[in-house]
């Protein structure tokens, strides 16, 4: 009896220790994330008295709807291209393994470790009027070569490049765990290699696809610097809009309401994901 009591006490003190370990992170998040977030919420409804007119303005104005829709469309396009490029790459990494896998994963990781801003500026150089890509196009006889910078093409291209590492890592972590003997068994039972891939490998890798797409889509919804620096001035993303509302108009209320709406949209995507997959699986 005394022994049982000891174990209970121990597990209780273990739990206390766990909470104590959590404390620094919780305190940090509370001070630097939750409180500012609460402030944003507060700004969005107090101007200076309680009001919902910032939200009403957002939802009754087709300009905001267009920006929101445009942001979703861009995020969807970027996600699709990321998937199309990353799936074959991750498949090759898993299937070929060895030195190839190490080198490819290192390349992906290196691009992952380089800051978004640096990579965005690199694209400005590559896509510029005097940049190499346009030089190649004119050398191939396309004169005058089209201007690439400050278009929807340039910002989409750069965002795909920036987010590919997330997609590759999400796909790779799931594909790596797939037992390839299952695919071999299917082939031995008469399936063509393509059929075996389509009916066995592809469904097994689906969690990776969902993880990768969710990650990329959500990150893309909040993209700011890349579309602003590389994109066409007409292509307004919602994060850029928030920046303008603050930078140009000092409309803190309006900007806060827009930020809260962006947050709600992001949370909705997460909620759908959580309902069908589970948030704890997001990082593999």
């Amino acid at each position, binding site marked *: 009896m005394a022994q049982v009591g000891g174990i209970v006490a121990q597990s209780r003190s273990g739990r206390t220790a766990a909470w104590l370990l959590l404390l620094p992170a919780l305190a940090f998040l509370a001070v630097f994330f939750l409180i500012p977030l609460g402030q944003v919420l507060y700004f969005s409804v107090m101007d200076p008295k309680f009001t919902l007119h910032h939200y009403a303005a957002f939802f009754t104005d087709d*300009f905001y709807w267009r*920006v929101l829709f445009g942001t979703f469309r861009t995020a969807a396009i970027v996600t699709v291209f990321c998937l199309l490029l990353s799936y074959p790459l991750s498949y090759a990494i898993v299937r070929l393994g060895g030195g190839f896998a190490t080198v490819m994963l290192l390349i992906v990781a290196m691009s992952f470790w380089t800051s978004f801003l640096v990579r965005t500026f690199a694209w400005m150089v590559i896509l*510029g*009027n*005097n940049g190499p890509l346009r030089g190649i196009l004119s050398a191939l006889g396309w004169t005058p070569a089209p*201007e690439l*910078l*400050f278009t929807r093409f340039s910002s989409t291209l750069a965002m795909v490049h920036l987010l590919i590492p997330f997609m590759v890592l999400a796909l790779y972590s799931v594909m790596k765990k797939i037992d390839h003997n299952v695919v071999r068994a299917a082939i031995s039972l008469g399936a063509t290699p393509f059929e075996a891939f389509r009916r066995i490998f592809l469904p097994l890798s689906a969690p990776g696809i969902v993880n990768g797409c969710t990650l990329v889509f959500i990150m893309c919804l909040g993209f700011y610097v890349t579309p602003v620096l590389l994109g066409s*001035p*007409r*292509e*307004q993303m919602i994060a850029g809009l928030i920046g*303008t509302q*603050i*930078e*140009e*108009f*000092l409309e*803190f209320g309006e900007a806060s309401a827009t930020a809260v709406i962006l947050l709600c949209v992001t949370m909705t995507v997460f909620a759908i994901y959580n309902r069908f997959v589970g948030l704890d699986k997001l990082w593999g």
Partner: protein
Amino acid sequence: MTKTIIKAKGKSISRRSALQLAGATAALTFPAPFINRAYAREVLYVNTWGGPWEEAAQKHLFEPFMKETGVEIKTVSPVSFAKLAAQVKTGVYEFDVTTLGDSDIVRANEAGIIEDASKAPLDQSKLWPGAVFQNGVGSHAFATLISYRKDKFPNGGPQTWADFFNPQKFPGTRCLQRHAGRVLAIALLADGVAPDKLYPMDLDRAFKALERIKPHLRVWWTQGPQSGQLLRDGEVDMIGIWQTYPVRLIREKQPVEMIWNQALLDRAYWVVSKGSPRAELAWKFVQSAIRPERISKFALENVYGPLNPKAFDFVSAEDAKLMPTSPDNIKKVVIQDTTKASDQLQEASKQFERWISR
């Protein structure tokens, strides 16, 4: 207390690393007076335009002031109207002094985010008639003018804003500053409005004129150095740009031409952020920055036009010719009277931002 911590942190950046740690600890554990004694050197935070502007200011305005007073000047850039407003709201001051152009100072004064200059400890005998405008103290004039790539227009490019707004006559890509106050005024000039009839602005007419070149406006510039880069790299064929940048590019023998005709003149004014804990020091700095011998050297570097008339005692007749305020150029430039537009600038900016992304 928050303010104190930030102040102490700012100071410690320039110290050796050992002191940095000590400073941070001190800021967290000791009351404010102790820190002020530990770091006898006061700090003033100045908001700058970055690039060549800051280089010139560093050399001719900041360093002499630091040497004279022992105060340390730290810079924050670029000039941000939003930050100026936000710091009044939050009480956390990232900078104490900044400069604002003609349309922004009217907006800032309207919004009550700058200190009252009439109550400032300024030496009135050192000021000149018209030195104080909308609670700012006149520093220098700069111009938004047409500049183009000579390799794109070997037989001469656009000479007026009407040319700039005429893509049939001058095909090519264009760029302007993402700044409603200036762009709308330029659009009206392009549409034939007389300079003295610009304000209040006929917004419908301005947007209609802008519509003509919308497909040719590849990009909008937001920061000075960026505009210079776009022109140097040939990303755009013509640009509405501050004179600083083409002047530098021409000195570097880049194929660039600049047109003084119809240049939109802006005057930059020193203002002190409302409620700044270092306001007194800030005004002291402003007083020193308008001294004729300093402002003249600062202006010469990037051919600004000093607003202090005494500054011309320190400028050779030849150099003065290049300035936007020279007798020759002042006849060509357009002077803004933004006070007449004070109640329409905020709304016009909103309409402008929407128009861009449409």
